[in-house]
């Protein structure tokens, strides 16, 4: 196993050129890491905004962020987290991993890949310039007519729209890149039915992006025609049209924020359970089903609008349907762990937390598919709890699992285990502390999107608990950040294949050289590295960590 220099040499004389190299690189690995770095910056911003909001909500009658100021933080926080944290994190993983997993040298269009990245960064800059012209306060959903000039006259809304359009085009071009890469650059033998799960889900995700984002672009263009040219599409026309188009984008958006995260989980759980994923075909095809259904359920965000019974029944039903392929995915992960020899290293810990929290968020989601329950709970903190369980407890925890899993590949070194465990437990406790109690608050009727609340029995205490937990979570994430920086130079050396993995990325140096592979093995199965390590017991017969007599295989023993 060759040891290469860490990814970012710290020689100070060469620093300008190293930065320049990152800025001008068209290498998918460099671009992928830059996406993650950008996301980290925005996570700090969005996180601080969240903490300030939580401070405001800590006690009833607080006036730290009174009135519209709260709405401004709310808007920036929601927009930042959705578009400039989760999305770039997932695009970063896709960029880094997709070519490696399919045995390609790079993405299909490397220069366009760099261009997409800078479009997204440009969008983020526009968003954070918007406060200069009057911070947007209409919420990340930007409901018309609230977002129209008479109600939100500040120019910041227009910059906000521009930010999403510019960033959105970056993402659309990335989707084009991902689709063509997956379709055309797979190595010999890498049939669709042999794609690693992450590659498969990222590829399907390309389709969702391709068809969901133009809905947002269209509706934002229409909003700007209203705001800048006085057209009145959503005022004299129909404000509900905004909701239709917005959620036609918005619901698939939630799935496009979770699919690559599922992909990461589907890589990690098998490797750390020493078993191939249970029901590969089902996990793969249910992803396709979910991609279609994600568009078919969008109007479940609009039950309070009064769409009429037939429509509400139809969308309630499709929403329940989507729980089936999703739920069965969870069972597939559990079945993969079942009777496996599970190693609870950091990536697996995060994956386990993901399963629990994502399932919780999924179940509370199903309750909304029951229309009368939705009427009761919509726009309460129950919703806030639900979507944070999905997006943070699900998607972001999966990303953190992936980060711990792939950090050795990125840098050649492990993240520090002790610091990592501290971070993990603080994150789990903090996260659940913030959002679990919000289910109760919602059931007690506390509305969301309000800057303060009356001093009703229990409300103050639960909110205070939520806020304190928020700071615990903040410390947890801070520890992670410290770990990420420190381990780059101080971490234990990892080598090529520290987890005894099965997919092609573990064949490369850590970090991989330019062009990725000097030589690719013949590919006969879903787990090419298993085949290399066990030449007389190839993958087709579902080999396990244990041999026929139930003993741990000799060659698997060294990899606790």
């Amino acid at each position: 196993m060759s040891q290469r220099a860490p990814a970012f040499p710290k020689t100070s004389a060469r620093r300008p050129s190293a930065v320049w190299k990152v800025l001008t690189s068209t290498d998918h690995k460099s671009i992928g890491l830059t996406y993650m770095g950008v996301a980290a910056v925005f996570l700090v911003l969005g996180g601080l905004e969240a903490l300030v909001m939580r401070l405001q909500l800590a006690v009833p009658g607080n006036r730290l962020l009174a009135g519209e100021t709260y709405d401004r933080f709310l808007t920036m926080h929601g927009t930042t987290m959705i578009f400039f944290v989760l999305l770039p994190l997932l695009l970063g993983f896709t960029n880094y991993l997709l070519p490696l997993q399919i045995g390609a040298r790079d993405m299909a269009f490397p220069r366009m890949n760099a261009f997409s990245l800078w479009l997204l960064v440009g969008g983020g800059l526009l968003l954070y310039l918007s406060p200069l012209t009057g911070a947007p306060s209409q919420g990340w959903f930007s409901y018309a007519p609230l977002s129209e000039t008479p109600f939100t006259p500040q120019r910041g809304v227009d910059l906000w729209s521009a930010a999403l359009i510019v960033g959105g085009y970056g993402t659309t071009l990335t989707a084009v890149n991902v689709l063509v890469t997956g379709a055309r650059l797979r190595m010999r033998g890498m049939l669709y039915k042999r794609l690693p799960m992450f590659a498969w889900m990222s590829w399907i995700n390309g389709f969702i992006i391709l068809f969901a984002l133009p809905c947002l672009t269209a509706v934002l263009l229409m909003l700007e025609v209203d705001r800048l040219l006085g057209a009145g599409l959503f005022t004299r026309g129909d404000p509900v049209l905004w909701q239709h188009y917005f959620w036609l984008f918005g619901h698939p958006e939630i799935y496009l924020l979770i699919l690559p995260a599922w992909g990461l989980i589907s890589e990690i759980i098998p490797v750390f359970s020493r078993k191939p994923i249970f029901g590969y075909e089902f996990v793969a095809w249910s992803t396709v089903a979910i991609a279609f259904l994600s568009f078919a359920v969008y109007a479940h965000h609009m039950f309070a609008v009064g769409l009429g019974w037939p429509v509400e029944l139809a969308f309630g039903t499709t929403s329940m349907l989507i729980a089936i392929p999703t739920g069965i995915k969870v069972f597939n992960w559990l079945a993969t762990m079942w009777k496996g020899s599970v190693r609870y290293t950091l990536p697996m810990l995060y994956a386990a937390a993901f399963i629990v929290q994502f399932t919780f968020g999924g179940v509370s989601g199903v309750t909304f598919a029951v229309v009368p329950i939705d009427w009761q709970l919509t726009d309460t903190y129950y919703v806030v709890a639900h979507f944070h369980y999905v997006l943070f407890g699900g998607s972001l925890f999966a990303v953190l699992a992936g980060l711990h899993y792939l950090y050795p590949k990125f840098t050649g070194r492990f993240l520090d285990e002790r610091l990592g465990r501290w971070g993990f437990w603080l994150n789990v406790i903090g996260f659940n502390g913030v959002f679990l109690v919000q289910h109760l608050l919602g059931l007690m009727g506390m509305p969301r999107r309000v800057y303060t609340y009356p001093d009703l029995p229990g409300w103050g205490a639960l909110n205070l608990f939520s806020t304190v937990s928020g700071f615990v979570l903040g410390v947890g994430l801070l520890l992670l950040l410290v770990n990420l920086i420190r381990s780059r130079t101080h971490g234990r050396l990892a080598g090529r294949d520290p987890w005894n993995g099965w997919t092609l990325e573990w064949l490369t140096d850590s970090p991989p050289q330019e062009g990725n592979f000097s030589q690719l093995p013949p590919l006969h199965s879903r787990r090419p590295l298993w085949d290399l390590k066990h030449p007389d017991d190839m993958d087709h017969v579902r080999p396990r960590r244990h041999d026929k007599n139930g003993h741990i295989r000799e060659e698997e023993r060294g990899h606790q």
Partner: protein
Amino acid sequence: MQSDRASRTHLGMLAFLASDAVIFLLMLVSNIYLRRSEAHGGQSLLEPGRMLVFSVLLWGSSGVLLLAERQRGRGDRVGAGTLYLVTALLGAVFALAQGLEWRSLAAQGGTISSSLFFSTFYTTTGLHGLHVLLGLPVLLALALLSWTGQIGRRAPGVAAAVLYWHFVDAVWLVLYLVFYVWRGP
């Protein structure tokens, strides 16, 4: 290798246009949907006959482009270059005609804020016009490159550019039918 790159670019353009088509689709749907709430949206101000002449020029440009591609396939660089130029000119005439039409409509009171019909009309045709304008420099570049012998029989970008132009023309067919011909729900 060359042809592999060409097919990649082609596929990429196909994917992008699929995404682009969704935007046009939603804008058309909003026109159709919002027309219900207006008795007179001002559609009668449009002159389908006059616009048909220029539309035929635009659709014809796709035919010219097909001829250009044939010449390129035969290795006739000068001929192909000239036909790319003709394609661009037809597109330019169309864009100009559309600009003039907008001006005369506005003069008769059909502005973007005068009715929902015109809001969606300007938004949608404006977006289409933008596509035409973006296509023009690409076609001109093709002409120049072809004349100076810098594109051979197989060049990765050309197929994608050609696909784009056909797409723009096809979209116009739908827009023309919905805005100029169809009388509404």
